[in-house]
Every structure is written in structure tokens, then in C-alpha cells.
């Protein structure tokens, strides 16, 4: 356990000083769950760099998940949800522009949920799902994508002999890694993770954390977490939210060693939240 976290810290160090270009640009975004009566997000602006892990932290109910779900427009599914101001640009494209199709957006911006949720299908079918709905039928392509994704998700060795078995037979940690494999199978640009480890035990958590550091080489990762240690272990940049506002956003080392705002310091030192 201890070894593992050391290893993770070491891994994160090696990649820390890569040059970063912005992938996601959140520009003064306001969001309401009730058609604008009350704002859940109150004018948030932040730039999320490429091939880094960005952690969103803050007390429960401050709007982290809400922001995350704005990024792939999952909030569209709520009838009364409304963007009240501002804009979000991903790879330079305003995602709320009329010509943008949320379906296409979600193919580029994948999501991993708090509670692992593989489909009640075989392991293979789970990973192949995204490609299949995009119309890929050729078995060789699917086979290859499934293997590569499972390898990327560090699940290949455990799952290769039981690809046709139900995914629900895997352990919790394995199921969450399968969900990650399912998400990366369609090669998105961004992966959003909403407390991906909160339902996992420490060992499974460590594995997923290790995986994220691997994945950031290829993907841009935004992760919501309630664990300070996790944020400090795996993220390059950290954003602290409070009551729907972005209080402080800076490099992780800065936030955890010398936060500029008092609220941030109180929060990470455990004085509230």
C-alpha cells in the first residue's frame, strides 16, 4: 500500500513539467437547475490543460459534478437545466453552439461515474459497445480495440480469459477499470471522472490512480474527488470550489503547499467540508 503511493508520486513527478496547451476553456459559466431561478454555478472560468490531470475539489454540494456534467452536456438530459451565462470551449469549439451535436461531443468527452456501472453484458461487449454504436462491425477492429483498451486500463491480464463472461462477475475495482476501458475504447480527447474511487477499497483505488497517471499521456483527465490525498497524489492542477464559485485554481503543489486564499487553506487542512 505504501509502496504503491510512493510509486504513484514518483510517476507524477516525471511528467509534471510537460508543456501544456489548453483543451477546455470554461468562460464565466453560469448554470441553473431550475431554468435560471437559482444559479448552481456562478460564473466559473478556468482553463484545463492538455494531457494533465485536473482535480476538482470542494465540499459536498458545491457544484463539482455539475460543472463536470456541463463539460459533456450530460445536463441536457434534465429538462429544467439551463446555462445562464458564459460559454465552454473544448478544442476551441463552443460546445453549446447550434451546430454542435451533444452525441458527437460525448464521443470526444467520455465519462466515468462514481458508482461503477458496466452493462449487464459480457466484458467484451462492454468494451466494444462504444465502437458498435458508432457502426463498427468488423470483428478484427473490435478485437483489437478491446484488447488495446483493456491493456490501457490494466485489465487485460485479469480479463483476457473471460472476455465472454458477464462483466458483473468482476470485482468492484475491476468493474470500474472496465468502465474506464469502455470509455477509452472510443479514443476520446477528454475523460471526465466523477469520484471514480469513492466506491472502491484502498487497493483498487491505488490501481485506478496508477492507471490515471498512465492515461494522462494520451488523454486529458478531469477528476472530481473528495479525497485531498488523492488530489495531491495524482493531479497536476487543482481547482477548489465553494458554493458554486471557483475559489482558487492553480498547480496542485501550489494549492497544497501555499494556497493563496484562506478558504482553500481551511478546506485542505480539514477545518471544514
Amino acid at each position, binding site marked *: 500500500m505504501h509502496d504503491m503511493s510512493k510509486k504513484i508520486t514518483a510517476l507524477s513527478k516525471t511528467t509534471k513539467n510537460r508543456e501544456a496547451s489548453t483543451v477546455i476553456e470554461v468562460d464565466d459559466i453560469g448554470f441553473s437547475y431550475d431554468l435560471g431561478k437559482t444559479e448552481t454555478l456562478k460564473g466559473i472560468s478556468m482553463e484545463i490543460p492538455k494531457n494533465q490531470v485536473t482535480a476538482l475539489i470542494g465540499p459536498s454540494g458545491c457544484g463539482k459534478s455539475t460543472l463536470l456534467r456541463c463539460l*459533456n452536456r*450530460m445536463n441536457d*438530459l434534465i*429538462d429544467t437545466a439551463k446555462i445562464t451565462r458564459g460559454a465552454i470551449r473544448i478544442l476551441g469549439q463552443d460546445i453549446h453552439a447550434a451546430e454542435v451535436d451533444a*452525441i*458527437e*461531443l*460525448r*464521443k470526444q468527452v*467520455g*465519462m466515468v*461515474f462514481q*458508482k461503477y*456501472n*458496466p*452493462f*449487464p*453484458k459480457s466484458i467484451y461487449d462492454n468494451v466494444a*459497445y*462504444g465502437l*458498435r*454504436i*458508432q457502426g463498427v462491425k468488423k470483428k478484427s477492429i473490435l478485437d483489437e480495440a478491446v484488447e488495446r483498451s483493456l491493456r490501457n486500463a490494466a485489465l487485460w491480464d485479469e480479463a483476457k480469459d473471460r472476455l465472454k463472461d458477464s462483466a458483473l462477475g468482476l470485482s468492484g475495482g475491476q468493474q470500474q477499470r472496465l*468502465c474506464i476501458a*469502455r*470509455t477509452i475504447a*472510443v479514443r476520446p480527447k477528454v475523460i471526465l471522472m466523477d469520484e471514480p474511487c469513492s466506491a472502491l*477499497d*484502498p487497493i483498487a483505488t491505488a490501481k485506478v490512480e496508477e492507471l490515471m497517471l498512465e492515461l494522462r499521456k494520451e488523454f486529458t483527465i478531469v477528476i472530481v474527488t473528495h479525497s485531498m490525498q488523492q488530489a495531491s497524489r495524482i493531479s497536476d492542477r487543482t481547482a477548489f470550489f465553494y458554493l458554486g464559485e471557483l475559489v482558487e485554481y492553480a498547480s496542485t503543489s501550489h494549492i497544497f503547499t501555499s494556497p493563496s486564499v484562506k478558504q482553500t487553506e481551511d478546506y485542505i487542512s480539514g477545518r471544514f467540508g
Partner: protein
Amino acid sequence: MQVAAVPANKPKNKSAPTFKGKRGLRLMGLNFTTDGVVKGFFGGNAYLAILALLFICVFLLKSGLGFIPGYRVELGEARISGVELTNKVRYELTGYKALLARVNQAFIAEKRNRFGDEESTIYLYEEFEALVDDEFEDAMETYLSINDSPEKEAACARLCKDIADACNNIPEKKLLQALTRRLPELRKVSTNAKDQAIALAQDYALNDAETPHAVAEISAQISKEMGNFNTAVQAIKSAGKPLIQLESELTKHTAESDRILKLNRQTSGSITALEQGLKKAKQRDEPPVIIAAIEKRLKKSRGSFIEIDTEARIKAVYQAIENHDLIVDTLLIKISKAFNSLPAELENELTNVTIEQAHKLNSEFAIIVAKQKENISAWRHDKSITTGNTLAAFFFGSEWQTGSPWQDIYGLMPLFTGSLLVASVSLLFAVPLAIGAALYVNQFAHKREAALVKPGIEFIQAIPSVVLGLFGVLVLAGFLKDWSHSPLLSWIPGFPITERLNVLLAALLLAFMAAPTIFTLAEDALNNVPKAFTEASLAMGATKLQTAINVILPASMPGIIAAIMLGFGRVVGETMVVLMVAGNKAKIPEFSEGIGIVGQPVHTMTSIIAQEYGEVTEGSLHWQALFMVGLVLFTISLVINSTCQRVLNSKNR
């Protein structure tokens, strides 16, 4: 990792608990507490339901299973007496008669088409004559029931007027003839009836402006133009005579021995009863008068056994049947010869269709004959009937024929296939409809829309089935039939439909009834799919439709299968609608017609019970047969329900 320690069970109160409950009322060694009584009440109700179910099961089994030995005895008698053999010939005869009727129909259709109005005049004459006769008889009956003389005269006047009124609508000269024919009778009842009638008739004759062609004249023309057709019809008609004769000869030989066997069975039944009664009476030391009376009855019963030499009788049967093969072979040859001279392509579509149907009936008849020839030559009157034979005769018997003056036949197959066919066809309509609606309401509809559609569909269940049946019989049946004749739809196999009441009609209405059941259960199943699956799929960039089809539908499959099966159970068990609209023809539908099968009338297991329960006497074989059918239905429902439970449970394994 931390394991939460289980707190030690330390009592928090200072006074230690005693763990003693309240003492209830003690009665008859039982302890009555409020809890106990309430529990007993609910438990009692639950067990009452189970008890009722058990009672029904036992009753069904007892009444139904008595059928098998009873039917075995009847089948045995039918065999020994030769009735069974006669039935085989009769079966052929039915096939022949259907064929003949169809050929006749074609002839009439053609005649109508060619001679239109004149044809209808002949028809009208016949109808009219019948009408006058009917009216007359009615009026006569009323008249004769009056004794008083002045009233009688008045009634006579009414009588004459009634007749005239009845005939007034049909301006035919025939009235005069009909009245004149009735005059002698009229004269008997009244002195001035004659004058009245003649006056009326003359009155009528004066009004009769148009005189239609003489009947004879038209007939002559018909025979001139349609001579060949007519000859063919007549040839088929006369070719059947030897077969009809054979059947009646066999009937003559076998019916009597069958009757005697049945009488003797009754007698032996009453002898056994009397013997038992006598034994009991003697045991109980009843007065000698009673014992003597019983003995006298017993003696009389023993004497009423009718001697019967079945061997001698059966000889005549074997002799008669010897000619069978020759008769049917000749018949087949004659029919096919006549068929060759039938006109091929006529202008009238109806004639062509009818002739085509006749051709089909002809080939069917040939098949029947071939099969019966085999059966008949293999038939032996002295082979005994086993329980296995009886079970096969019931479960696989292809005929259900009751209330006939002849032998009743209880074969489940026509009813079973009828039920299954109607149910399957209705599911074909109901399943896509209901599942589609459930998917839509659950996945795509706006909340407000769902709030409107869902109760709407569920409300269909509230329609009493008899109302639905009424709508089916009076509205949809005619509509469907007319509609099926539209040339736009003639590409659908089985169209146009010739029968008003048929499988399709029943299936449509049943689908309407089953759809809400399937819809509600399927919607529940869809609802039970965790939202996390939907979210995961949508977050992968799947559309709502892709999500519904690839994730939600498969995930809810067990529930949906259970929904379909329960829908099937509902349809199989439904009675009123099928009784009203399925046509109630106890004949195995002809699967050779392909999809056209849906245009045929059928009978079902439920509707046969509903239709025939009123005419059975308690304990009779027919009574038991209906319970057997009930038992089969019950078993089917049981199997369906328990399979559903298993399917649903396997989901949460």
C-alpha cells in the same frame, strides 16, 4: 482497514430488562393476545385463499378425470357396434358434402351474375311463398286458440288482413296463388273468409302493374346458357349417392346395436345400485316389505337386459363396408371428370373464387378418402380400447362433436389449436404494440405526455370484454370483411376474407385486451433498469434510441418475457370475446393455407366451455369432458405463471 467493532450488549437502562411479554387471554388452551388475533386473522385469510384453490383443483381433477374411463367405455361400445366405422364413412361424407355445397354456391353465384333480376324473381317467388305460409300458420294458430264465436269472426277478419299485410310489400302475382291455395283451409274456419280473401287478392291483382317474366321462361334460359355448368353440378350430386347410401346402410346396422349396448349399460348400472341397496337393507334389518320391493325391482332390471348378438350384427357391417373402396374410387373419378368440365375462367370474380375453393375442397376430399381407406381396411371391431387409446382420442382427437343424435366425439385438438392460434396471432399484434408503447413512454415521451398516455393505455383494461366483443361482432367484423375485399389489400395473404367471424378478428380484439397487461408489466421492467446504465450509454455518445435498444431492452429482457407470457396467459384464458367473434367452428384450422389461416373461424377451449355448459346434465360424459377441457386450461395457466416466476427470479439470482 478498520472493522467497526460491534458494541457490547450493555443494557442502557438502570433497571435490567425482564424479557417478559404481556399475558393474553387464555381460552381452550390457546393464548389470545391482540397480536396473535390480528396475525391469526390475516393468516386465516391467506390460508382460506389457498384452501379455495386446493378445493378447485381437487374438484377439477375429480370431475375431469372421471371422463377418461367413461369415454373409454363409450369408445369401446362404438367399436363393438361398428359406430366407429360408420363415423369414418360419415367423415368422408362430410368432406364430400362440403365440396358439393361449394360447387352449388359457385353455380348460384354465376346464375345471379348472369341473370341478375330475373334470377332474383325466382328467388323472390320462393321466399314469398314461404312468407305467406308462415304468416298463415301463425294467424291460424291464434285463431284456433279462440273459442268464442263472435270473437272468432273478428279474428278471422284480422287473419285475412294479416296475410294481406304481410304480402303487401311484395308486389307479385304469386299472392293470388298462395291465397287460393290456402282457401280450403280458410273456408273451414269462417264462412265469409273466402269472400274476404278473394276480395283482397283481387284488390291486389288490380294493383299489380308489372308482371315479371314467367318463372318457367327464365328457368329455360338458364338451362340453355349454363347447361354445362349445371350438368357438372348435377353429376357431382348424383355421384355421391352410393356413398350416402353406404352411410345410411351402415347407420342402420350399427345404430341399433349401439343403442342396445347403451341401454344395457344403464341397466347394469341400476342393477349394481340395487344390489348394493339390498345388501345394506338386509344389514340394517329393514322390514321385509322394503326388501321384497327391492328384490322385485332387481328382478325386473335383470329381466330387461336385451340380448344382443353383436357378432351377427357386425357381419352385416363388414359386408357393407366391402364395397367402400370401390364406391369412393368411383366417386373420386366421377368428381374429377365433372370438375374438368367446370368452366375455367369466368367474368364473375366471385364465381372464380368459389370454384377455386371447390377445387381445393376436392383435393382435400381425396386426401381424406385415402386416409380413411387405410383406416377402414385396418379397422377391427374386436380390438379392445385401452386407456392410452382413450387419452390419445381426447388429446389428439381432431373432432369435437357434441349434441349430435349420433355419437358424441370429444377431441381436444380443434379447441387447443384454436386457442393457441388465436393467442399467438393476437400476440403478434399486441407484443410490438405494447413493447413499443412501453419503450416510448419510458424512454422518449415527455413527462407530461407519459402522464397522459400511460393511464390511457391502462384504461383499456377497464373495458368489459363483452362490450369489446359486441363492438367486434357488430362493427369490426363487417368492416374487416369489406376492407379485405379492397383490391388495394389483395396482396395480403388470406385476403379477401370470406368468413365474417374469424381468427384475425378475435386476435385483433384480444391484442387490444392483452396490450395493456403487457404494456404495464414491460414498462415496470424498463423502469427497473438502473439509471446508471442509461447514463453510461449516453455518456458514450449513444443516442437515446441506441441506448433503449442496446442497453435498456436487453437489461429488462426477463421482465419483458414474463410480461409477454402473462399476456399470453390472459389471451388464452379470455372467454367472452372469442366466444363472440372467433366463429366457434370446432375444426382444426387448415395450416396448409399459410397466413390465410387467420381468415378461418375457430373454436377455443374457453368458449367451448362457455357455450356448452348450459346444455350438459350433471355427471354426464359431456359434463366431464368440459371439466377435462377446464383442467387443460388450468394446467396451461399454471405452467405459464410458474415459468414467469422462474424467469423473473433468475434475474435476481
